[in-house]
């Protein structure tokens, strides 16, 4: 494993963590070469997560858009309601394999925290989750879910009190407890080998899309689109498709709009820098201080992005677009009414840009949209926002 995606990636971490990263890289390479490990992981994906998740032909949405046939990759139907479980089960198995008994994680929307808590409960690991106090408020049902699953949730009060600071807190805790604890990072971010491991574990999304596309319409889609926070559901879709001619689109959160600072459009508006162990794009001021991101969606509210996305962005292999809070809310209503699916606010960003892409393609073409999660966790926040509007 190289640990670099073009110029991006690397291991910009305190010395204390270097041994753990190298231990993890070795354990991961050995595990992937071990049939028994891979079987155990795939069994869990099938029997516990409920994979493969469907590729649903969204007929009414297709008609509404009036272009390419829209297919939804239904990660909202994975156990715990989002793609995050694909990653946490793999990392929890790795944690066990390394002889560590404790899992820690950061979370924004709470989906990764819930997925980590779930994997820990299933495999009998201790689990602690760090969550910004703003997100604890925004995503209260997920806090309670984690607690029900036997996980301790720490509300992080430093900095912007969101995902960035939860990640700082988790890194600090890992430095302290690295000998018996695995840090299950929640996206394709952080120091090598995390971006590679998380991408590989999420690539089940793209592999299933390839197989299901063949079965549903006898070939490849013309285009595929996913939302990008740290970028794990998108990387899981893109990695298996990167060597095909499929046009790939990532959608970042434009929050209140790209003109000011209230957005999380890292690739669209940021520039390269080092945060959380990796060299990648970053929302930062002119002097290299990391800026607070903003999005209605807690899972996209992050000023960094995975280093492989930075590489795909620079190379032009993937086009990165953005959608505002308003556009995402509108898309959420649209999918609910047209298809009977309430997506997570994160996923609604992908749906918000899907219409234009579908319209730019002929009716015979297919467009795959990842619905990365379900919207139950967001209902209270949406209701409150719409009541005050």
């Amino acid at each position: 494993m190289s640990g670099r995606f073009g110029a991006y990636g690397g291991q910009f971490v305190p010395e204390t963590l270097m041994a753990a990263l190298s231990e993890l890289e070795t354990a991961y390479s050995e595990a992937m070469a071990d049939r028994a490990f891979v079987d155990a992981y795939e069994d869990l994906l099938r029997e516990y997560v409920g994979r493969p998740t469907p590729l649903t032909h969204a007929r009414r949405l297709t008609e509404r858009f009036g272009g390419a046939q829209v297919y939804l990759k239904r990660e909202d139907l994975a156990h715990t309601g989002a793609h995050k479980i694909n990653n946490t089960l793999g990392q929890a198995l790795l944690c066990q394999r390394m002889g560590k008994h404790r899992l820690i994680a950061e979370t924004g929307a709470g989906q990764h925290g819930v997925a980590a808590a779930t994997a820990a409960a299933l495999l009998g690991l201790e689990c602690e989750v760090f969550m910004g106090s703003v997100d604890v408020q925004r995503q209260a049902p997920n806090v309670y879910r984690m607690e029900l699953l036997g996980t301790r949730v720490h509300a992080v009060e430093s900095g912007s009190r969101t995902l960035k600071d939860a990640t700082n807190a988790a890194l600090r805790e890992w430095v302290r407890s690295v000998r018996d604890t695995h840090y299950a990072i929640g996206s394709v971010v952080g120091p090598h080998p995390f971006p590679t491991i998380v991408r590989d574990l999420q690539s089940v999304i793209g592999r299933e899309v390839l197989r299901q596309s063949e079965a549903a319409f006898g070939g490849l889609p013309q285009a595929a689109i996913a939302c990008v926070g740290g970028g794990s559901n998108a990387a899981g879709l893109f990695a298996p498709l990167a060597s095909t001619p499929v046009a790939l689109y990532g959608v970042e959160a434009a929050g209140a709009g790209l003109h000011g600072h209230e957005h999380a459009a890292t690739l669209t508006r940021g520039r390269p820098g080092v945060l959380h162990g990796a060299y990648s794009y970053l929302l930062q001021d002119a002097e290299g201080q990391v800026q607070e991101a903003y999005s209605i969606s807690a899972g996209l509210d992050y000023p960094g992005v995975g280093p492989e996305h930075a590489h795909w962005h620079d190379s032009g292999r993937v086009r990165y677009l953005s959608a505002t809070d308003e556009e995402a809310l509108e898309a959420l209503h649209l999918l609910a009414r047209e298809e009977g699916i309430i997506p997570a606010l994160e996923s609604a960003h992908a749906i918000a840009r899907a219409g234009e892409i579908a319209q730019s393609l002929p009716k015979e073409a297919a467009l795959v949209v990842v619905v990365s999660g379900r919207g139950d966790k967001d209902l209270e926040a949406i209701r409150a926002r719409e009541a005050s509007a």
Partner: protein
Amino acid sequence: MTRIQETLQRLRAENRAALMAYLCAGDPTVEGSIEGLAAAAQAGADILEVGWPFSDPVADGPVIQAASERALRHTRREDVIAAVAALRQRVAQPIAVLSYCNPLISAGRDETLHVLAQAGADALVVPDLPMEESAAWRQAAQAEGLAITQFIAPTTDAQRLPHIAEAADGFVYAVALLGVTGSAEDSAESILPVVDALRRHRDVPVLAGFGIGDGASAKRWRSRGLDGVIVGSALVQALAERGPEGVRRAVREIRAGLDSVG
């Protein structure tokens, strides 16, 4: 010979321990942090460490995090550089700058290294720059006469030590505990074997930092054979509570602890 090498060599010849004193530039004000470090120098610090405040200090505990947050409200890049330059005018001691990677690369790494060297800095301590990532940095820094500090930690793998020893410039920073700055307990039993193993590759000065905050703990590390100690959180707290006089008192107390080891 560089200013840091000269200082550490002289201290060794005198059989004295080195004391490196950290404060965060701009906390409570730019002027206040300069006064604090000047007071530390006067009270017996051998190396001054100027902290460059950063939004995401992952290696730091609550005390330095809070100092960094306070400083960022009014401290700019040019203030940090001016603080280094002001100290260079006032003290003879070597000056290290502690900064995370991102503020250093934001305006171009080589340009920033140049500006810091011009201001009078002697070394950079970059807590998120491990040996593996530091090669290009070292090359650029060397051209400016700046040292890039290497680290060892309780978890450092023996296989990496020859490379760390080879890359070392000035001194090696031994992280004295598993945790962030300002933590209470140390991990002597796990870092000391790493220090010994490092020295078998090369006889380079090793200073211990993280969690060392008073004369007693400084004395403990000195008697364990370290070349010196690095003190941060305790001085940040002393400055916040009692100003430069507080720093002076704290440094004197730590100095006395170090010097009590024969």
